[in-house]
């Protein structure tokens, strides 16, 4: 390595904390998100240990309520939402479109500082005494009844929201304005289509969350009647506003994951993605229809039956494009030349787990069944299948796929595959029993529970132990590889994307010469067929 790359241009702290290089900012995000992931994970571990027995034995009810609230807030706003966009997206987007950087490099750095400020405020709320409202902040509990640090935590989330908006804005402008010559919209890798759709939601939905949290703070501080019926407010108004953001936010979390899966399935089948245009437009369809389904969180809240009917219908509609994507990924494998490298194992795990998550979503969209299943472990299992089985698995898959590009090092394939398989089994053992618990009627957010539910809870806690170990493994073998791994070539997967046309790790300004695009994406050369990869 004689030539300087983005990691070796400068080694000072200043060069990291005042950098405007999208690659270094991605690393800053990456380090922060690892921290938040393990904070949220520690809370989850404590929850699963507590639930191994029906009685309260590890913590008190107040502590338990603070644990699941902390788990939710940290994981949703400080891990899942920024995960793929701000780490992999930040790093890969300019490389994929052949640009030197994002459109607004300084804004990108500011977005990280805003995110960290939000994170620190939220951590302060947790350390000062915690929050016990659940991540949903339902009123009037959060405004008048909770004696915890609600406002501080809400302020943290409020601040972090601006980081989301800035990132979304940056991606939208970048994808519009900075594409390499010849890179038309239909030549964009599907990862960019899904990040584009994600960014649109980030920019349009996040302000509603900010408004909602401000209204909540106004009621809590000044006693203005907005959500509390005693002073003339309406508690359901809060739910409408909150889910108007938070349901699209679910798509903020899953769309980037779907984008990553396109890249992986295509690369390791050595074949273009089946039905490219359908998959591309499905991302935008999900983003658009995702704004019209929020009321499916409120089927038993007392909203009008007609409203429930419409929201149920729209929820089934929004499931169609997701189903199309699953079919297209499967069809991509047909007549491919499939390599089972670690990223592909994650991608296959994603397809299976996301499908189970999607199918349980149908149960919940179905009005009469939702009456039974809502607010039970069925819902908990459903969104963990999407968010953890889907999103986190895709994140790990993408991380392994682009790891050689990011660090310039190769990781241990053996350990990577072991971790992938372990995550898959650990995950299913943790969350499949929760589907059954929900169908049997165990409510969520229960600190103590009737003893007949114990069998499934013990299985779930056992799975969580495996999952915890599996999630710790990459920390070691990827950490080792970052410093001592074998040097990676520029294009270890023989992939045609622009990000593989520059050296690993890329130089400070990404490309020596401006790349020009002349072909559709995913043109895997026929000669790679039937040849073992990574021989």
């Amino acid at each position, binding site marked *: 390595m004689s030539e300087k790359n983005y990691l070796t241009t400068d080694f000072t702290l200043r060069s990291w904390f005042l950098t405007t290089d999208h690659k270094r900012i991605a690393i800053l995000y990456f380090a922060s998100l690892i921290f938040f992931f393990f904070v949220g994970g520690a809370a989850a571990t404590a929850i699963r240990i507590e639930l191994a027995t029906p009685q309260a034995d590890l913590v008190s009810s107040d502590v338990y309520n603070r644990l699941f609230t902390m788990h939710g807030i940290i994981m949703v706003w400080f891990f899942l939402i920024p995960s793929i966009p701000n780490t992999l997206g930040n790093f890969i987007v300019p490389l994929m479109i052949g640009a030197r950087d994002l459109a607004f490099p300084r804004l990108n750095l500011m977005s990280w500082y805003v995110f960290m400020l939000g994170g620190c405020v939220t951590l302060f709320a947790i350390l000062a005494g915690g929050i016990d409202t659940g991540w949903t902040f339902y009123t009037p509990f959060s405004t008048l009844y909770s004696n915890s640090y609600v406002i501080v935590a809400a302020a943290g989330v409020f601040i972090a929201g601006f980081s989301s908006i800035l990132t979304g804005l940056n991606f939208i402008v970048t994808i519009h304005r900075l594409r390499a010559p010849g890179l038309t919209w239909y030549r964009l890798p599907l990862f960019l289509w899904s990040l584009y759709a994600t960014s649109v939601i980030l920019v349009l939905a996040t302000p509603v969350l900010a408004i909602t949290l401000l209204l909540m703070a106004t009621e809590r501080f000044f006693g203005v009647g907005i959500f509390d*019926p005693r002073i003339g407010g309406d508690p359901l108004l809060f739910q409408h506003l909150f889910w108007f953001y938070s349901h699209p936010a679910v798509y903020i979390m899953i769309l980037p994951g779907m984008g990553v899966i396109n890249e992986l399935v295509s690369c390791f089948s050595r074949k273009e993605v089946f*039905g490219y245009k359908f998959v591309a437009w499905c991302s935008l369809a999900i983003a658009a229809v995702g704004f019209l389904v929020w009321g499916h969180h409120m089927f038993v809240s007392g909203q009008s039956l007609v409203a429930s009917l419409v929201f149920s219908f729209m929820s089934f509609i929004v499931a169609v494009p997701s189903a199309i994507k699953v079919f297209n990924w499967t069809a991509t494998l047909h007549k491919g030349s499939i390599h089972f490298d670690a990223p592909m194992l994650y991608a296959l795990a994603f397809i299976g787990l996301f499908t189970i998550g999607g*199918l349980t979503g149908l149960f919940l969209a179905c009005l009469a069944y939702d009456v039974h299943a809502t*607010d039970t472990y069925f819902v908990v299992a459903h969104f963990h299948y999407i968010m953890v089985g889907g999103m986190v698995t895709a994140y790990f898959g993408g991380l392994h796929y682009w790891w050689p590009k990011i660090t310039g090092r190769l990781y241990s394939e053996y350990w990577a595959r072991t971790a992938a398989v372990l995550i898959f089994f650990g995950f299913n053992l943790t969350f499949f029993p929760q589907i059954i618990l929900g169908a049997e009627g165990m409510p969520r957010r229960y600190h103590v529970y009737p003893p007949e539910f114990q069998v499934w809870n013990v299985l779930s806690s056992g799975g969580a132990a495996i999952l915890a170990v599996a999630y710790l493994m990459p920390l070691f073998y990827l950490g080792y590889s970052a410093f001592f791994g074998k040097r990676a070539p520029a294009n270890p997967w023989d992939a045609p994307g622009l990000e593989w046309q520059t050296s690993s790790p890329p130089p400070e300004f990404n490309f020596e010469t401006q790349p020009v695009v002349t072909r559709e994406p995913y043109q895997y050369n026929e000669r790679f067929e039937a040849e073992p990869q990574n021989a």
Partner: protein
Amino acid sequence: MWRQWIPFWQPGLSTHSGDVDLLFAGLLIVSALVIGLLFFLLTLFCTRYRAGNQTDRDHRVKKSWHWEVSWTAASFVCFLGLFIWGASVYFQIYRTPADEHDVFVVAKQWMWKTQHPGGQSEIDALHIPIKRPVRLVMASQDVIHSFFIPALRLKHDVVPGRYQDLEIEVDKPGHYHLFCAEYCGTDHSGMIGEVVAMEPSDFSNWLTQQAPSSPLASEGSQLFRELGCSGCHGNGSAVRAPPLEGVYGKPVPLSDGTTVIADDKYIRDSILMPRSQVVASYQPVMPSFEGKISEDQLLRLVAYIKSLAGHQS
């Protein structure tokens, strides 16, 4: 019953829960088919087209649109069917309840208080007769709670500031879980109770065995005088206020030209927000009782006004 043979499965206990279980079975079958097909294809493709395996890779499908249209249409039709099925059962669950045996339910951090029309009150328990629809009138004293009986596959949020009706009917005597399903603070998981379904004869015995207490309506009548309601609404008062005899369940013309049925919700709202729905040809002079009376007192007043339904003014 075949359902009892499914391991770990508690069969539902009413006609309604049978419908929901059938829907659940339908959803399970659809899911099993989809997962089965997907896993079959994934396994097939991953084995046959694994790298290094010599097999026919020519004639790849290039034109994809008719595949896309077919599976889009198939998913849509399947989803539409599930939507209609789920919606039709939902409308049966939340149909307007029959006005039979009313039980008042007050939810508060962290207990369920239930009260029968005869004044028998219970905490974290609800005794009901079997094979007879029971109408619950639910209110919350503080935050949002959710009334959930898993054995009936039935749940409804209890939101403060409004009454919520819910009709339940149980077919088999027994003890069933009652859970609070909406997170409500520290002791949320302790807000659980028991629904005791009894033969009608046992139920009437149970009612008479309870500690003698005065019926809700007569306690309401006492409150009606204590709170000064009778000063205006009573016979021969100086202030002109609508008489309440015979009002319950009847249409009431309002000053804005519309008409409402004087049900529990309307009476409650009229006590707390008297100026929002004023009876036609009366002045909006009644003071609000918001914050001055509890949910327990409110439901006694409602019970009293209901008891006047048969009277003529």
